């Protein structure tokens, strides 16, 4: 009897020691994890992006089932297919990126057309046409921003010099079209539009451009640095793609027996909810992008450009509220500089393209909210608009544009994890 009591006491002591050790180990793990996250925060984004891509890729991998093909070969052949498709897409996109001459022409054209539209709308710089009081008020409000955009589009001395060289034929390129030279000359006197609204603010000393050599060296260094960090994303994608459930099994093996079934259920429910949300969002963004691309093409935009605007706007749509605005800005910018536009819809006046673009963005937004989102996402995850706004602002503060893009998925993961965990802990009568 005494022996049994002694054993029980020993067992109890051992249990207490085990609990203390486990608690200390857990605290140490959390501390190390937080420290590493803090120190390696630059690596966090490529890791998250790689993991996210692997996660989105997983259903394709799961559907590609050939029992006679080993898992590694199966994944490798899938990677090869995806890599080839991506290569083709990037190659096509690279061809669409304007060269130096086209960039200069686009800048000149955008500045000219913008000023032309501004003058047309508000009669700025035109003594004969007096704008109404409302137009004057708008012009007063929009003026400073317009002046800043105008300043951004100004060609500096070096760019002006190169533009003039290109205008006569340079680096084997044909001479610039006559209309661009006319725009360039008109832009030289465009400062009158700025003067009408407000004198541009004096450029602070700190903002004086650095010598060209320094300016070129800095982006190169940062490009190499970011490239070396971003090499992690495909690596993470690759290794997670090869994973055949080993990681999940390893983590589940660490879970105490009491929580074994609970952990499997929670992991599965989380996986299901997050997967549905992410894939739903991807599909929703694709639908929005396709709608915009088709709409802009019908309005008269060249197909390749309409597709590019559709892709960018579709991607931006992942950021609630801001997404449609980004799409609007891009499409409006084109509607301002577009020339010789022939709409495929009969009866549309090409002069009013900007209005049609606004209507198109509005219709797409309504379609997204009324049709796409409810069908694709359903009630996958309901977030309060205030939470969405705070998350986006927080994300942008922490990681800029990437932070804005990843803010909502992060909140969704956290919300689903907490909800599922509490529900299952109750079901398993642990709490």
């Amino acid at each position, binding site marked *: 009897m005494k022996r049994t009591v002694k054993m029980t006491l020993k067992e109890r002591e051992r249990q207490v020691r085990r609990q203390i050790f486990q608690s200390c180990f857990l605290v140490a793990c959390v501390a190390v994890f937080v420290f590493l996250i803090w120190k390696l925060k630059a690596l966090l984004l490529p890791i998250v992006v790689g993991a996210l891509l692997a996660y989105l890729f997983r259903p394709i991998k*799961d*559907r590609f*089932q050939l*029992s*006679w093909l080993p898992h590694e070969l199966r994944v490798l052949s899938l990677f090869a297919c995806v890599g080839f498709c991506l290569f083709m897409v990037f190659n096509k996109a690279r061809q669409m990126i304007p060269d130096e001459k086209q960039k200069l022409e686009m800048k000149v054209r955008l500045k000219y057309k913008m000023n032309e539209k501004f003058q047309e709308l508000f009669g700025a710089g035109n003594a004969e046409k007096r704008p109404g009081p409302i137009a004057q008020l708008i012009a007063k409000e929009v003026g400073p921003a317009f002046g800043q955009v105008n300043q951004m589009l100004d060609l500096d001395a070096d760019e002006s010099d190169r533009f003039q060289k290109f205008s006569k034929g340079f680096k084997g390129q044909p001479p610039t079209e006559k209309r661009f030279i006319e725009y360039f000359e008109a832009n030289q006197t465009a400062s009158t539009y700025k003067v009408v609204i407000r004198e541009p603010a004096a450029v602070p000393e700190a903002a004086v451009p650095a010598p060209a050599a320094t300016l070129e060296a800095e982006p190169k260094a940062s490009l190499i640095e970011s490239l070396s960090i971003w090499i992690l994303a495909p690596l993470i994608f690759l290794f997670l793609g090869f994973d*055949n*459930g080993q990681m999940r*099994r390893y983590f*589940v*093996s660490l879970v105490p*027996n*009491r929580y*074994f*079934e609970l952990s*499997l*259920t929670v992991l*599965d429910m989380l996986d299901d909810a997050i997967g549905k949300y992410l894939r739903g969002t991807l599909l929703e963004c694709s639908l929005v992008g396709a709608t915009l691309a088709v709409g802009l093409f019908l309005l008269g935009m060249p197909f390749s450009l309409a597709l590019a605007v559709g892709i960018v706007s579709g991607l931006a749509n992942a950021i609630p509220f801001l997404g449609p605005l980004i799409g609007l800005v891009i499409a409006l910018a084109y509607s301002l500089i577009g020339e010789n536009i022939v709409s495929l819809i009969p009866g549309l006046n090409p002069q009013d393209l900007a209005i049609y673009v606004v209507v198109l963005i509005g219709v797409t937004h309504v379609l997204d909210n009324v049709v796409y989102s409810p069908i694709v996402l359903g009630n996958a995850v309901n977030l309060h608009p205030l939470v969405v706004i705070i998350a986006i602002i927080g994300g942008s503060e922490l990681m800029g544009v990437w932070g804005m893009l990843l803010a909502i998925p992060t909140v969704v993961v956290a919300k689903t994890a907490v909800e599922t965990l509490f529900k299952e802990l109750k*079901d*398993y*009568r642990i709490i």
Partner: protein
Amino acid sequence: MSVRNLIAEKLMWESLRRWKNTSPELDRIQFLKTVPFFNELSNWQLKKVAEIVFLRTYDPAEYVFEQGQPGAAIFLIMDGQVAVEISKEGLTTSLATLERGAFFGEMALLDESPRSASARSVDGCKTLALYRNDLNRLIHSDPATACHIYRALARIVGDRLRSTNELVQAAEKLAA
């Protein structure tokens, strides 16, 4: 069995032999072969099952699962003994003591209904757990294997239903 499957199986066993004479994976496959639940499966299919099961080790008197909890997995006893107990109004009755090769909690493969009894390790035990959703995923990745497992499950449920009916009939006869 097709020639392709035969070659694949031969290759698998050769690679396993080369790898190690006694590897945990080989142990698991050999154990699974002895469980009636998987007796229709080929070695190649058993390897696939061995890849998705979880090995769990329990201390003496530790609960594998408790009555009333939602079920998520079936457990196969690899080593040791497990007591199946039912509690009612504070009274615990032991229904059976299961040994190596036996399985319990099989209804969890069909739905999330609460466990009808508790399972407790007697002197410590080792089990292999097959999670319901892993089996569901096997339907897509290897339908033949999943089909064999579900057929075995249907046969077990059918046998139990038949024996319950016989018990009810016997009880009715006694009552009459």
